[in-house]
């Protein structure tokens, strides 16, 4: 079991000794039991930290946000930032290190092992409980999730309530960390690409209809982009207003900016947006599942990223975020890379 007190002690010590400028962790949110991310800067606030199956968010996103914020400050605090990381978060940190977006000294990682469980899927849980108010959620034995409702305790098996990505997770412990809490348990996980294979089994027209149905719903709210720790580009191809305008950018340069796709949520534009995003995340997506969680329309965005994750594994034997020293997928090649599709 993960000992929350030990995490708090470590966080408190780091803050008291001034080793870090803040601790990013989970605290109790204002809405019932669900955890929310928080930046803690005062040692007295450390007691607010929690760890339970509702700690869904990928906190590496806030490392990116902090880094961007620092770039805007005149005299930024150069001390590192302590971050609570789960397995998937740690892989995201690895990708950021690999791409040299952050340096290793900039973060102190408080790694938490999910052991033989994971985090819950809010939608699954709410529908199982028919929307009843949840009073408490804690980890039980053997990865079970114990939920308190109406003063009574209900125990759920991991398969019932865990998020899909957790059920398919192959490294449910931090692959990089400075402090490690909990045990490294090699858990039996479901085969990773079942959903992708189901789509591949469809005929071409069926696949097209399936994706058209999904993509037609996209509102282009860009929530998936905002929540993704890998979408840190200052300038995004799909969104011409966000291109980096500097004091030296002339009016002509602004006017000449290529508009790759329309902003209106047309089916074709939605397709191109999601394909561009998927290909941009190839070999970088660590499957934290945040994009799918935040999508207000419930589009299975993760399936696109999963497909590329599988092809990267099948064709190039590459898994994202396992090694911060290894070259990234597209910055290297092998003589033996497949080329049977080339004429």
């Amino acid at each position: 079991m993960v000992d929350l007190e030990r995490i708090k002690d470590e966080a408190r010590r780091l803050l008291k000794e001034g080793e870090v400028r803040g601790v990013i962790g989970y605290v109790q949110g204002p809405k019932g039991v669900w955890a929310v991310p928080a930046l803690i800067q005062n040692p007295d606030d450390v007691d607010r930290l929690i760890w339970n199956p509702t700690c869904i968010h990928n906190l590496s996103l806030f490392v990116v946000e902090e880094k961007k914020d620092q770039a805007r400050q005149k005299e930024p605090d150069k001390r590192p930032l302590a971050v609570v990381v789960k397995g998937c978060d740690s892989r995201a940190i690895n990708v950021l290190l690999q791409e040299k977006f952050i340096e290793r000294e900039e973060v102190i990682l408080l790694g938490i092992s999910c052991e033989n469980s994971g985090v819950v899927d809010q939608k699954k849980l709410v529908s199982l409980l028919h929307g009843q108010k949840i009073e408490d959620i804690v980890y039980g034995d053997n990865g079970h999730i114990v939920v308190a409702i109406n003063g009574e305790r209900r125990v759920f098996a991991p398969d019932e309530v865990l998020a899909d990505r957790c059920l398919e997770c192959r490294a449910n412990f931090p692959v990089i960390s400075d402090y490690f809490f909990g045990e490294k348990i090699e858990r039996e996980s479901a085969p990773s690409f079942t959903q992708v294979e189901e789509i591949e089994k469809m005929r071409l027209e069926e696949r097209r209809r399936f994706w058209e149905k999904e993509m037609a719903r996209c509102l282009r709210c860009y929530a998936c982009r905002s929540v993704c720790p890998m979408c840190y580009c200052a300038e995004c191809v799909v969104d011409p207003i966000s291109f980096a305008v500097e004091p030296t950018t002339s009016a002509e340069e602004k006017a000449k900016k290529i508009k790759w796709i329309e902003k209106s949520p047309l089916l074709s534009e939605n397709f191109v947006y999601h394909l561009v995003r998927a290909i941009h995340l190839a070999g970088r997506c660590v499957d934290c599942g945040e994009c799918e969680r935040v999508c207000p329309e419930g589009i299975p965005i993760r399936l696109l990223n999963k497909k590329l994750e599988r092809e990267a594994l099948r064709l190039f034997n590459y898994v994202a975020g396992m090694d911060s020293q290894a070259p990234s997928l597209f910055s290297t090649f092998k003589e033996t890379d497949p080329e049977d599709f080339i004429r």
Partner: protein
Amino acid sequence: MNSEHEPRIVAFLCKWCSSAGSDMAGVSRLEYPPNVIPITVMCSGSVSPLYILSAFNLGADGVLVSGCHPGDCHYIKGNMYARRRMALLKELLPYIGLEPERFQMSWVSAAEGLKFTQIIKEFVEQLKPLGPQTQLRRYL
């Protein structure tokens, strides 16, 4: 009105080989279908998947990326990077329902004018029965 659809192909040709290869086809007076819109790029490695998606978005029925044979890249290894990138895109497009024939890649050297014409001929033949590409095309 049941005339056959004339496909439009956007071809990203490497300046150092495939573009010269198409030139070779021209000066050799080899005939091939006029359905190709050639775009010369400095290297097949400089072709972003975004260019290809954008070509489909703007109405291309097929996209060809053509570069130097492995080992012949003017920039030593640009085509090898392209090979990786395009391999993934090649897998991704049919996954969302686009016919796999619509996106192709080839190695054409500056001397292979004949190979270039054959690739275009076959590409056009493959695209004709598929009809216009409507999935990624922007209709305003």
